[in-house]
């Protein structure tokens, strides 16, 4: 919606927004907690409230949209096939903006051994069942993974009368935002066990217990630390994966680390005229950044439509120490560019360096860094002028 609204604001007439769900707003609809919109709207909104602000703009600006309509195919020629209860439709576009969001990593993907009872949910599914469908999923809960959704669901489950026994995190630090650890665990006395994971699952029908063990420095189980926890529900908050099945189908090149398309500074994928923003490009922790990213890439969409987005150069952004990924992965023009990063580990008093060989282009000090928090830095066209190479690292 943010991209569609921005397109209309830039004067693009012919837009179509396609959504497979029954309403606009995506994942925001199930995030009924507050804290959304602090940057964008200077207010602490709930997810649905944040979405509503965009829905109103979509309606006001008369942007056509389809609901309950799933895109089945995307071609490199920028054609999409959509199905809904009216039939199967082809749409051909000059540009396409991918904003399909992300999905959750599952038990199968992280390979927790053990029995296969009911009562194992990913945090997002639990959130949907409770917040959107009004169901309760269990009584005694262990949460695996301290991602934000897991933390928020810990609080949610307590408020709904369940017992949350613990949050176990494989890493020696949490992968959730500090404010969420504070407000969702600390405030409710829920133990957070770092360097712990589930090593076995018991239960024939419904889940009856989970075995938790402590992990050593190399990630192996420390002998003698296994403990059986009786519970009826295991919630997994173990990572999000950008939903790029359509991108893959179209032959768009993906970045194995972000899971999203490789893009240039305008959010353009390896297929000219196909752009990506939001969680499909990289998993965001704050929705305001999703909106900002959408608005930012629309500049490139306009340029593309006007034939101004030409390839003036091809610079691969190299990744140095301390960083897990950088978006964009390449630069093709001479524009002001916002770079997004995730760091490898938590740290304090770090410096982010942008360099061309030995020449320092820009330096930014960061008081605290945390893998859970995306770092965004803008470089001006002037700073990027004339460079042949670009490397970023964190020291």
């Amino acid at each position, binding site marked *: 919606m943010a991209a569609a609204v921005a397109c209309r604001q830039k004067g693009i007439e012919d837009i179509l927004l396609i959504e497979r769900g029954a309403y606009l707003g995506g994942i925001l609809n199930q995030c009924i907690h507050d804290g959304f919109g602090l940057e964008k709207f200077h207010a602490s909104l709930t997810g649905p409230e944040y979405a509503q602000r965009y829905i109103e703009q979509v309606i006001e600006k008369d942007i056509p949209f389809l609901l309950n309509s799933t895109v089945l195919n995307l071609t490199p020629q920028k054609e999409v096939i959509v199905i809904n209860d009216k039939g199967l439709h082809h749409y051909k576009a000059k540009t396409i903006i991918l904003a399909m969001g992300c999905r959750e990593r599952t038990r199968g993907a992280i390979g927790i051994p053990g029995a296969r009872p009911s009562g194992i949910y990913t945090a997002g599914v639990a959130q949907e069942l409770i917040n959107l469908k009004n169901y309760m999923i269990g009584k005694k809960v262990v949460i695996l993974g301290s991602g934000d959704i897991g933390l928020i669901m810990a609080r949610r489950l307590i408020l709904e009368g369940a017992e949350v026994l613990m949050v176990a995190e494989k890493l020696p630090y949490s992968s959730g935002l*500090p404010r969420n650890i504070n407000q969702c665990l600390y405030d409710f006395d829920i*133990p957070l066990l770092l360097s712990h994971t589930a090593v076995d699952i018991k239960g024939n029908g419904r889940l009856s217990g989970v075995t938790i063990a402590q992990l050593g420095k190399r990630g192996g189980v420390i002998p003698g630390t*296994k403990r059986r926890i009786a519970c009826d529900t295991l919630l997994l908050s173990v990572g999000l994966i950008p939903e790029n099945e359509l991108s893959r189908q179209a032959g768009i090149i993906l970045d194995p680390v972000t899971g999203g398309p490789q893009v240039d500074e305008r959010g353009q994928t390896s297929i000219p005229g196909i752009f990506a923003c939001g969680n499909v490009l990289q998993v965001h922790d704050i929705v305001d950044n999703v909106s900002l990213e959408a608005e930012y890439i629309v500049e490139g969409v306009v340029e593309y439509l006007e034939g101004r987005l030409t390839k003036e150069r091809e610079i691969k952004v190299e990744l140095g120490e301390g960083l897990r990924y950088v978006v964009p992965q390449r630069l093709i023009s001479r524009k002001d560019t916002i770079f997004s990063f995730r760091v490898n580990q938590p740290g304090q008093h770090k410096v982010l360096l942008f360099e061309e060989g030995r020449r320092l282009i820009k330096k930014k000090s960061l008081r605290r860094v945390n893998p859970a928090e995306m770092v965004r830095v803008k470089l001006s066209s002037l700073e990027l002028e004339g460079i042949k190479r670009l490397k970023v690292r964190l020291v």
Partner: protein
Amino acid sequence: MKTTNNQFDVVIIGGGVVGCAIARELSRYNISIAVLEKEDDVGWGTSCRNSGVVHAGFNNKPGTLMAKFCVEGNRSFAELCRQLDVPYKKIGKLVVARKKEEIKGLKDLKAQGNKNQVKGLEIIDSTEIKRLEPNLAGIAALYSPETAITSPYLLTIALAENALNNGASFFLNTEVKNITKLNNSYFKITTNQGEFTSSYIINSAGLYADYIARVVGIRRYCLYPCRGEYHILDKNVSWLINHLVYPVPQAGAGGLGVHLTPTIDGNILIGPSNEYIRRKDNFSTTSQIMKMLSKEVREFLPLISPGYIIRSYSGLRAKQAPSSEGGFWDFVIEESDTIDNFINLIGIESPGLTAAQPIAQRVVEIINKKERLSPNPDFNPYRKGILRFEEQDEETKKNLIKQDPDYGEIVCRCEKVTKKEILEAINNPLGARSLISIKYRTRAMMGRCQGGYCLTRIIEILREHFDLNPEEITLKGDNSYLLTGYRSDEVSKPCKKKKSLSLEEELPVWQQQLPAGKKG
């Protein structure tokens, strides 16, 4: 034909692929048949937990029933699948030697296959291997063009539905507890759902066939569960291999070695392991084996990385050979010599899926010899499965949506399953209603997100359709409920809020404060 409620000519214990095949073969005749299955659906024993391979028959000892029925089953499999609308693909198999010492093993296999009258076996060299399988390394291989793949659960379901359609009765959630023979003529079968009587009993209870035999006093059989664990890989990497790829079997092994199996739906299976365990209901996967499988398979195919795994599972072989001995003992398919009309099927391990139809025909032969069964004039060998929207061409898709708008709603995003297919699965003729039953029938929840998108939608469809309470929705029947009810409106205990920390303070971390529990 069926006279009173629970009185039948033949009771089949166990609705696995074998029990269902027997029910279908028997439904060609004018007799009343009941299948008693303890689970919420057919096929949940070993029949949904295997490799899904239609073996050619070169692995089995010449002269055994295993060899004979495997080869026969392989030959008639395509036709069986055609009649029952079950997917089948003859993709061929490579048994790959990586060391010189293994080449003799290949030659022995080929000779054994020839003796069993397996068609088309050929030993190929490394260039030919590269041509067939560009990603694979090997110095020589046995190529078997007749080896095929199928969907083991769809086959089991199809056999059951076809038998049902031809007059057989199915009783799910019905566990046989005791059997007695009355007046030396009728069997009285006690189950958790009441009593049944019958003139014949067919014991096709898979892993539990030894137990069922013991219940009537036959003590000579003992079945040991031998677990095979698998990983399932994402469809995105289905291009890695084109054929079934097996190592050269080791002497005395009770399995065929860790192999790569393309499934009919386009995933690849890695496995199975081979481990005797104690309990017959232990389908757990274990971290040691999961790691071993990943490692072992990379020796074959270095391109496989653990990131491609979307799920793991295990199946249990019904072994007659004790662990000290290992290896394969031949199928036992015979009428008991002490109890008339009691037919035992013991040790139906691999290739039991391939051989299901010939095994069933053998059982019918045994009964026919005694009874001279008259044919069922209405027998119809055909059955239609659920049409898969995703597999249709565009014109058909358009027409389908026009006929029924439910085809226009994608419920499972990964496998592109529509609401129409879910509805058909929910309304299956056997009356199985749990999520696993829907999963096997439609592939919903089987993709890379494992139900992340569709679980909620399916729950809603189920509730809408059958007017169920939230607690009544189960993963796999019995005690496997998914929801504990509706969200409560009251808060159970007051939550006192603490002073929030400022961002400058270190975040609190609780270590080692686990609630009391036993050491694992």
